[in-house]
Every structure is written in C-alpha cells, then in structure tokens.
C-alpha cells in the first residue's frame, strides 16, 4: 500500500482551481508521510490536462481514459477508479471537495470498505498512538473542529475543502510522462442519463462586481424584516445578498445567494447580518476585503473571519447602523 494519489478534476477544458488546492494538500500529506505524490486524470481524453501538470513535482501521472467517461456519471467514475485503485493499492487518495466528488467519492470509498473523510481543512502530524496523520474537519456547521485519524488497513480517502490549502507556485519537479490506464466499462453499467447543464434563469444581479454587500441569514427570522435590511444596504450603497436558508425560503431570489451553492464574492465591504457563517457560506465571501458581522451569538463561526464584530440583537443594531451611516452621508 503506497503513495498519495490526487484525483484531479477538469472544468471547461482546464484543471479546476480547487484541484490545484487538492494537489497542495497532497504535497503536504507526502511531506508528513514520506510518500510519493501521484496525480490521476479521468475522462475520455485527458492529454491537455496532463500538459498542465508538466513540471509539477509528481512521481507519476495516470490518465484513466475511456469513451464512456466523456461525460461525468457516478457509475462510470466509481467503476473506473475502483479498477485502478485495486491495481495500485494506494495509501491516501485525495479529492477536491466539489459537487461531483460528493456525488461519487463516498460510493467509491465504500466499495473498498472505507469511508470518505470529507471537507478536510487541515492536515497535521500524527497524534500519539495513531498510525497516520491527523485530519481536521468541521462539525456543527463550522462551530467545532473534529480531529480524526484513519484506523485499520486499507486506503484512506479524503476530500479537501475549498480555500483550506494554498495552491501556490510549486517547486519544479522532474518532467514526468503520463501513462494511460484503460478501465473495462460497458454502456449498460452506467445507469444514469445526464442532461446538458443549464442556468435556472437569467442572472439579474452580478454580486461579484458589487463594491459593498449586506448579506442576511437565518437570524432575520422572517421575510417581513427584509425592508429593514434593505434600508441598511441602500444607506451603504450596497447590494443585498443572503445565505442559503433565506433563498430556500423564497425570501430573496437565488441569484442573490452567496456561498458554495451560490455566487462567490470579494467586495470591499461585506456586512453579514444574522449569518452564523457555516463553511459553505464562508467559501463564497471570505476573500472580502473588510468583513463585518452582526450576530447575537459571540461563538458564531462568522467571527472567525470578521474584521469587526457587533454582538447583539440585530433588530436593534441594524437600524442604529443605518442611522449612523445616513448621518455620515449628510
């Protein structure tokens, strides 16, 4: 059993940004375990992606190719990767934590008798008595860290959360040539028929270009309180945005949703009102230049990344803030 194997994902014909972060996590894992680093590409034709990996410090690049892997399907990816991993017996398998990975990696790991350790945000040295490194993932929607280690025999499958590992410039490694692995697949084994991706509706607001954003979450309690939030946004010259539960309830249209399932934003000013700040929300806004959080819970994870915080009742704080901003503009 050996090696760290990173499964690289493609988007729009290129290696997806999050996959570079998964490679960075893989490098860190190699440094801790003295294992060689490998990359896996999967699809019908992956030569272009392999070209992007030239110069990376990789021991091997494997292209798993088959015409039936042209379009993603959970069945196709699980069968192909399982055949490959049974042939190489990996020690660690690292995935970027994307929607696609969430759709097939748990099944792949389970077929090999293991459980995927999802959303890893940190990899550290082994705890005493453990036979492998410590992996940290978040619990209770980002309010608690869980420290895990793999036990027993068999490969360890993990996926890494967006933004947790830095995909910086890497030292140049030897040029490795990619080898190809051809899995045995039949059309009948792929039971789902995926359609072409489409957009729900025309995007009417481009949050990504907003300079200031006031974003609201569950803490606003009901739709009737939205005008109060809109007033603050207007005073600041900001767009109104929201975390997922607000859009799920239909209180704001989904094109105003910020987070992993909505838009990613990086405005000058991001004011989070009544948002606890689960990691799915944070990945969509933590690059903002200045983050303000208003929340009644001093332990809310949003304060992890906030520059300024007000702990209090948002129904008192928001009107006061609107007044203070208006006074400034006079």
């Amino acid at each position, binding site marked *: 059993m050996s090696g760290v194997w990173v499964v690289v994902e493609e988007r729009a014909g290129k290696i997806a940004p999050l996959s570079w972060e998964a490679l960075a996590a893989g490098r860190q894992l190699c440094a801790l375990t003295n294992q060689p680093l490998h990359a896996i590409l999967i699809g019908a034709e992956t030569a272009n992606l392999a070209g992007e990996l030239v110069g990376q410090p990789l021991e091997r690049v494997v292209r798993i190719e088959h015409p039936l892997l042209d379009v993603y399907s*959970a*069945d196709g990816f699980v069968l192909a990767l399982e055949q490959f991993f049974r042939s190489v017996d990996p020690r660690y398998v690292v995935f970027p934590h994307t*929607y696609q990975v*969430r*759709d*097939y990696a*748990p*099944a792949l790991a*389970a*077929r090999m008798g*293991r*459980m*995927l350790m999802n959303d890893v945000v940190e990899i550290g040295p082994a705890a005493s008595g453990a036979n492998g490194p410590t992996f940290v*993932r978040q619990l*209770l929607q*980002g309010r*608690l*860290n*869980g*420290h*895990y*280690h*793999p*036990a*027993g025999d*068999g490969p360890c499958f993990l996926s890494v959360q967006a933004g947790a590992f830095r995909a910086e410039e890497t030292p140049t490694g030897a040029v490795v040539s990619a080898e190809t692995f051809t899995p045995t697949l039949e059309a009948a084994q792929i039971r*789902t*028929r995926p359609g*072409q*991706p*489409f*957009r*729900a509706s025309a995007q009417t607001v481009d949050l990504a270009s907003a300079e*200031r954003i006031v974003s609201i979450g*569950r803490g606003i309690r009901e739709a009737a309180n939205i005008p109060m939030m809109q007033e603050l946004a207007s005073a*600041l010259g900001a767009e109104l945005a929201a975390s*997922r539960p607000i859009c*799920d309830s239909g209180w704001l249209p*989904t*094109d105003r949703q910020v987070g992993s*399932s909505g*838009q*990613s934003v990086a405005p000058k000013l991001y004011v989070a009102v009544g948002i606890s700040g689960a990691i799915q929300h944070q990945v969509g806004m933590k690059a903002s230049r*200045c*983050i303000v*959080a208003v929340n009644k819970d001093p*332990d809310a*994870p949003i304060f*992890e990344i906030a520059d*300024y*915080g007000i*702990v*209090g009742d948002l129904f*008192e*704080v928001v009107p*006061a*803030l609107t*007044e203070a*901003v208006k006074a*400034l503009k006079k």
Partner: protein
Amino acid sequence: MKIIVAIKQVPESGAPFKIDGSGRWIEETDLNYNLNESDAYALEQALQLREQHDGEVVALSAGPDRVQSVLRDALAKGADRALHIRCDDRSGRDALGTARLLAAAIRPESPDLVLAGLQSDDVGHGQTGVLLAALLGMPHASLILQVEKTEAGLSVKRELEEGWLQMIELPMPAVLAIQSGGNKLRYATLMGIKRAKTKELRVVESGELGVDLASGLVLDHVSAIRKQKSTQFLPGTPAQAAASLVEKLQFEARVL
C-alpha cells in the same frame, strides 16, 4: 410507489454548546433537537410523490429513543409508518456505519425509491444517500431539487455549482440525496398529529441487524474553532457600537 425516507435528528442549529467530558462530542443534556434541514425537504418530496402517484411513505431513522420525536413528526406530516433503528448515538456520527444500518433495514422493504437529505447539520458528512445507493446496489443522483416520475423511471433536477442545473434520468429503484430549497415545506395539521398516534412506529434494535459499524475513521477529539483573524468587537449600546463601527469603516478600513 413505495418510498423510504431516511431522516436524522440533529441539535438545534446555532444553540450554544459545551464540549463534553469525553472531549469527543458536546454536552447533550441541555440540547434541543430538530429534524435535519435537508431531511425535511426529502420528507416533503416523498409526501408529494405519494400524493401524485399513490403508494406508501416510510420514515426511517437511526439513533437513541429521542429520535422517535422526528419520526412522530414525520407521521403527523403524512408519512404512513415509521421505522426506528435503536442504537447508541455515537454510531450516528459515522456515515458509513449508519448507512450500513439503514441499508439493512431498507433491504427487506424492497422500496421503489429511497430519499435522504443531502447533508446533516451536525456531523456534516453529506454521504448517506450516496452510500445507501452503493450498499443497496441502486443507481443514485445527489443534490436533487425536483423529482418527477416518468415512464422509464425518474427525471430529476440536480444542482451544480455556481447556479447551474442539470436534468438526470435514472431507472427505479433508485436513491436520491435531496438538496434543501426545492419544495415548500408543509406543517403538520392538528388532524395529522391526531392520526399519527394510530400509525405504526416499529423499533428494530441495531444489534439485530448484524451490521459491521467500523469505517476506518476515528474521531480523536473535538476542539473550539480557531480564529483566522482577530475580530475587533465593538461594545456598548447598539447606537454606540454602530457609531464606532462607522468610524472604523471610514478611517481604519477605508471602505466608506
């Protein structure tokens, strides 16, 4: 159509908590529990499908006795019967072990469709649906917002990243992991609550299912989150805090 919907009871989101004596979870004595959010949408989807196509909805949950309250809520909202796999709550923190228990209870029921919420709000492994498909040998789709029955099976709407969507067709029996927000949730009516009392809630002891719970993953301990930035907290009355925030935003952060 016979539908099994797997639901989970989780601590109320956002409530204060303390790490317990074992250092591996939180104090449970003062916690309130709710139905996990995406599971509420899975239940809603199951009820709507039954209303359109007849059949039966069975609510399934694994955990200690307290999880019967979410099963009773499901019965009050319209599920036909409920199945409780009684087990220590710790096994509920391991997605693979839990999925093996659920699969063992689902198999003899031979359902047409199995639904699960996408991700739990407490442990957040987000794997139960996909794991059930693997264990039951059924096709699956995850992050599903809408489900329609077709001649050949199912047509489902899947959420992709950054606002993209995709339709997927798959045969039945199948497993779907349901994303929140796809439907409007119903409340239990008084009549529903009354009727729930006469509905079947069967208890199965987890030990009787003969399931191996080891997943190869060990939770050593939990810890408080670490701050990535040092937040300046602005004290005082709301008016004072607001005034000092505006000043800081203007002169320190220079974003106003």
